C-alpha cells in the first residue's frame, strides 16, 4: 500500500509540476514538453489504477501522436519566445476568486464522493472487457465518433486543397 502511495505522490507531483510549467514557460516548445510530462504521468496514474490498456493508449495517442504534431507545427512555424503582457483587468479581479471557488467546489465534491462511494474494483481490467464494451454495448456511439473523425479529416483535406 505504501509503495502505491509513494508512486501516486511522485506521479501526481510530476503532473502538477508539468501543468504549472506549461503555463509558466515562455517558449512554446518548452510548454509542449511540459504538456508531454503531464500526459505521461497521467498514463502512469492510469496504470496505478489497473487500467493498462488506457494507459498505453494515453501515451501512444496523446504523447506519441498528438503532441508530436504540436511540436512539429511549432518547429515548422519557428515560433519564438512569447512576450509577457499585463493581465487584463477582468482576469485580475474576477479570475482569482473564480479559480479559488472552482478549487473549493472540486475539493468538496471529491471529499464527499470519497466517503460515500465504494472504491472501484482493484486489479488490472483485461483489455477484452474493454473491447467487448466498446464493440457490443457502446458500438453505436463508437461508430458515430469514428464517422465524426472521418468527416473532420475530410474537412481538413478540403481546406488544405483549396488554399493551394
Amino acid at each position: 500500500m505504501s509503495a502505491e502511495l509513494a508512486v501516486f505522490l511522485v506521479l501526481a507531483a510530476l503532473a502538477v509540476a508539468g501543468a504549472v510549467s506549461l503555463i509558466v514557460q515562455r517558449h512554446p516548445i518548452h510548454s509542449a514538453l511540459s504538456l508531454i510530462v503531464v500526459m505521461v504521468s497521467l498514463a502512469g496514474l492510469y496504470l496505478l489504477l489497473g487500467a493498462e490498456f488506457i494507459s498505453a493508449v494515453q501515451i501512444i495517442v496523446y504523447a506519441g501522436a498528438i503532441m508530436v504534431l504540436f511540436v512539429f507545427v511549432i518547429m515548422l512555424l519557428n515560433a519564438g519566445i512569447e512576450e509577457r503582457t499585463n493581465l487584463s483587468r477582468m482576469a485580475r479581479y474576477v479570475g482569482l476568486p473564480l479559480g479559488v471557488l472552482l478549487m473549493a467546489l472540486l475539493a468538496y465534491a471529491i471529499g464527499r464522493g470519497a466517503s460515500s462511494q465504494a472504491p472501484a474494483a482493484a486489479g488490472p481490467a483485461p483489455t477484452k472487457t474493454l473491447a467487448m464494451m466498446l464493440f457490443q454495448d457502446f458500438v453505436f456511439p463508437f461508430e458515430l465518433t469514428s464517422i465524426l473523425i472521418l468527416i473532420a479529416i475530410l474537412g481538413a483535406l478540403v481546406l488544405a486543397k483549396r488554399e493551394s
Partner: protein
Amino acid sequence: MSDFLAQHPILVVSGIKVVVMMLVMMTALAYLTWFERKVVAHIQSRWGPYRAGPHGLLQPLADGLKFLFKEGVTPAGVDRFAYYLAPFLSLSLALTSIALIPFGPQEIRILGQPTSFGIADLNIGLLFLFAITSLGVYGVVLAGWSSNSKYPLLGGLRSAAQMVSYELALTMSVVGVLLLAGSFNLREVIAAQRGFHWGFLPRWNILASPLPQVLGFFCFFTAAIAETNRLPFDLAEAESELVAGFHTEYSSFKFAMFFLGEYASMITVSCLATILFFGGWLSPFPETRFFVWTHYLPTALLAAAGVWLILDGLRYSTLLGKIVLPVLGLALCGAAALVSRPGLLEFVQGPFWFLGKVLVFLFIYVWVRGTLPRFRYDQLMAVGWKLLLPVSLANVILTSLAMVVGKR
C-alpha cells in the same frame, strides 16, 4: 540486505536483472557496431576494422574511449535544456523497450526467487513497446530543433513527419498477429505459434494457419526500418543532403548516445520481428525422436566456432591475435561442453533459437543498408501512405475474414 530482500523481492530481483541486462546490452551494442562495419565492409569488398586488436575486435572499445575523451562542443545559441535532453531521451527510451522482451520460456532463479527470463512481463507488452517507440521521435525532433542550425532542423522535421506516418503502418501490421494470438502479452503471442503443419512445417505466424502473415511481416519490417531511421529510410540524417541531419551539431558522448540508441532500437525491432512472426524461442524442428539431435545444435555451433577461432588464431599475423583468438576459441569450446550437460541442455534451447533468429534479422538490417540506395523524401511518404498503410489494413481484413471462415 536480506531483510530488504524478504520485504521487497520484486524490487531487488528486478534491480539485479536491470543491471545485468544493461551490461549485456551495452556490450552487445558495442559489438553490433563492429558487426555492422565488418559486414558492410565485406559487401563492399573491403576489410573493415582490423587494426585495433585481432579482427578489429577492440575497435568498439577504442571508439568508446574516443567518444568519452573528445571535447563536447556546445554550439552557440542552442536551447540548452532540449539540447541535452535529446540524446538522453533517445538512448534511455531505446534501452527501456528492451526490458519488455522475453528471452526464453523457462523461469530463472535469482537469489532463490523465481522470475521470468526477461526484465518485465506485462499483459500489454506489445502496446507498451509501441508506446515507448512512439515517444522515441522526441529525441530526434528535439535534437533537430534545439541545435539552432538549419540542417538539423530539416532533419528533425523530416523525421517527425516520417515517424508519425510509419507508426500507423507499424501498428496496423501487427494487428493480424494479435488477432491470431488473442493477447498483447509477448509470451502468449509466442505460445500461440506452437505446433507444426503436417508434422514438420512450424506454425509460426509467418506460416500461420488461416492466413500466413506474410503481408503483415512485409509491412512490419519495412515500417520498422523507417521507425528506427535506418537506410534506406534514413532521410533524417541523409548525409548527401543534410550533412548529418539531426545530430550534425552533436559531438563526443552526446553523439555516441544517439548512435547507441539507434542500435538499441535495431535490436528491439529484430527481437520483435522474431517474436511476432517467427515463433520467438520455438525451435523449427518438431519435438520427436527423429529430431532429438537438434538439441545439440548449440553445442555443435559453439564448438565449431571455437575450433575455427583456435585454428585461425594460430596462423594470425600479430602476436596479440595468436594469444587472444585461441583463448577465445577455448572459451567457446568450454561453453559448448557446458551447454551439452543435461540440466543446461534444455534451458539453452529457447534462448539459442531466439538469439539465432535475432542475429539473422540484424544481419538483414545491415545487408539492406549495404545494398539499397536511399529513398527520396516524396517516395518515402508515398510508400508509407499509399503502399504500407493500405496493405496492412488489407491484411487486418483478410486475417479477420480467414479466421471467421476457418472457424466455421
